[in-house]
């Protein structure tokens, strides 16, 4: 039963929920933001049906006990052929959406619905689309043979499967990263009038994602004997660090753009007035900022550290791995998607957000909950507690692993964080369902009267001035608060990295 639920949780969260949302972002960034025609809407509906049928098929197979293979479904674990067919149908549906997005860019260009280059948010969505195509190609290349293997029509090499699977399994999480960063840029502008510090730099950072981020899939194979150190180190270090550089660029330019936007609006005292006077009760803003911090400080630092080949040997198959990807995928991406939903409801669905008071605190519950849970998992993993085991203390094993008693404390930390996050997730689902299906409409009067359920960025678009003495002074001073935060980040990064090498040196004695 444990493995059934892990399979269910992994696929529904890491693949279905998140890719559905990303496909919605492609529709939003293409036809909506570029104000262009959606080519072949019938094909769009077909892709939606394929994705729904595929995800339902997989869920039915998992719940009926015919696919207890977990998210990774490593051979020789074998599921019912319909399970693999469901994944293929879902992937084909998503691939069609990517093609429609590219077609919508061509239509917009032909119809001249925009001038010059596409906007940065659309460029970020294009990055997500390209990574999605790379991901889905790997998915097709491995799941079609695996379907045939499950019907005993061909053999399967376990190592080849692992290589190709992670081209899908990890790259799919990089679609998240590109889509999430696009959402950050979008929300920075919508919530506080954030500016783009430098278009060229931000676009180049997205190009680094396109070229190098998918290669991080090799992280999952660092302890596999099938590949040599050159392949492992090239893919997870030299090339992948260029993608890390891209994340650090976005991690600076997004808050830097928010700071400059706030300073242009007059919040220019000291280093952090732009932060203290920010609209923290707007779930669009608070969700974006918590997502940025949790993803950058916790996800980024842990990811780069545990992706180092030598350090990875301490981390492999421990709870540190899920500790890392819960703060990236959930605390980072899912929270950013929740935050943007608070603007999608009034702007696209034309509905006022239901339970507005609850919506204001929801990002805090979810974000802090995941951060606490991820921290608990990371500490547990550091003490050697394994992942993907129904009893992580091995209570019935013939030998007892030497876990310190402190693991009980961190199990509790993980549990408390998980409960807070689950409460935040339930709040969001309640708010989203009630808003979309039963929400009150947004009208000109409701905006004029500032009624509840409409985020402050929709009530009054953040106004900026582009000329005058204040503008000159702001541009001269730059984003000095963000520079301080960037140095705090770098100190944390260096300390965490150093501590891990120190840990490795203490447990792996040479000579």
């Amino acid at each position, binding site marked *: 039963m444990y493995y059934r639920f892990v399979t269910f949780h992994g696929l529904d969260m890491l693949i279905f929920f998140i890719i559905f949302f990303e496909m919605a972002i492609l529709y939003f960034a293409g036809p909506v933001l570029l104000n262009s025609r959606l080519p072949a809407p019938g094909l769009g509906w077909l892709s939606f049906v394929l994705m729904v049928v595929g995800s339902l098929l997989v869920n039915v197979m998992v719940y009926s006990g015919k696919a207890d293979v977990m998210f990774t479904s490593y051979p020789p674990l074998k599921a019912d052929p319909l399970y693999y067919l469901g994944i293929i149908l879902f992937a084909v549906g998503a691939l069609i959406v990517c093609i429609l997005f590219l077609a919508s860019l061509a239509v917009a260009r032909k119809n001249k619905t925009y001038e010059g*280059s596409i906007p940065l948010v659309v460029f970020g969505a294009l990055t997500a689309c390209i990574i999605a195509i790379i991901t889905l190609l790997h998915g097709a290349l491995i799941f079609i043979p695996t379907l045939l293997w499950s019907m005993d029509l061909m053999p399967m090499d376990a190592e080849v499967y692992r*290589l190709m699977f992670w081209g899908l399994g990890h790259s799919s999480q990089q679609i998240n990263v590109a889509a999430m960063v696009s959402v950050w840029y979008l929300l920075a502008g919508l919530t506080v009038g954030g500016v783009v510090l430098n278009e060229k730099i931000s676009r180049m950072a997205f190009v680094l994602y396109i070229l190098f981020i*998918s*290669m991080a899939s090799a992280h999952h194979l660092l302890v596999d004997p099938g590949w040599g150190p050159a*392949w492992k180190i090239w893919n997870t270090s030299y090339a992948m660090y260029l993608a890390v550089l891209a994340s650090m660029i976005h991690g600076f330019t997004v808050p830097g753009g928010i700071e400059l936007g706030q300073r242009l609006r007059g919040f220019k005292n000291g280093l952090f007035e732009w932060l203290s006077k920010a609209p923290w009760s707007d779930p669009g803003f608070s969700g974006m900022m918590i997502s940025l911090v949790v993803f950058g400080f916790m996800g980024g630092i842990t990811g780069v550290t545990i992706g180092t080949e030598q350090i990875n040997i301490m981390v492999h198959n421990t709870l540190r791995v899920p500790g890392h990807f819960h703060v990236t995928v959930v605390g980072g991406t899912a929270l950013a998607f929740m935050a943007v939903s608070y603007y999608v409801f009034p702007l696209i669905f034309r509905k006022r957000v239901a339970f507005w008071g609850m919506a204001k605190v929801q990002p805090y519950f979810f974000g802090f909950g995941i951060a606490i849970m991820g921290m608990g998992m990371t500490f547990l993993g550091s003490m050697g507690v394994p992942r993907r085991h129904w009893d992580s203390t091995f209570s019935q094993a013939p030998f007892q692993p030497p876990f310190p008693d402190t693991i009980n404390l961190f199990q509790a930390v993980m549990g408390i964080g998980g409960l807070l996050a689950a409460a935040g997730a339930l709040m969001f689902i309640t708010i989203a369902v009630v808003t979309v299906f039963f929400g009150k409409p947004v009208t000109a009067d409701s905006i004029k009267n500032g009624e509840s359920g409409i985020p402050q960025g929709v009530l009054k678009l953040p106004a900026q001035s582009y000329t005058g003495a204040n503008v000159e002074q702001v541009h001269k001073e730059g984003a000095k608060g963000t520079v301080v935060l960037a140095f705090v980040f770098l100190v944390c990064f260096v300390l965490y990295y150093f501590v891990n090498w120190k840990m490795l040196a203490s447990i792996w004695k040479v000579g």
Partner: protein
Amino acid sequence: MSNESKTKGEKSDLIPIGQKMLDSPFLLLTAGIVVMFVFYTLWGLYEVLFLPKGTLP
């Protein structure tokens, strides 16, 4: 050549080559696919498929 198309051509010439490349989704798509497939997929497949068989001691 009309004046209008001349102006259009001049405008296009003013756009830096780097920006022209970034404005081409299909070039970016091709680059992304080639880099990933060459370094991760094909190199990885080559290593694992041509791994010499271990011999018993």
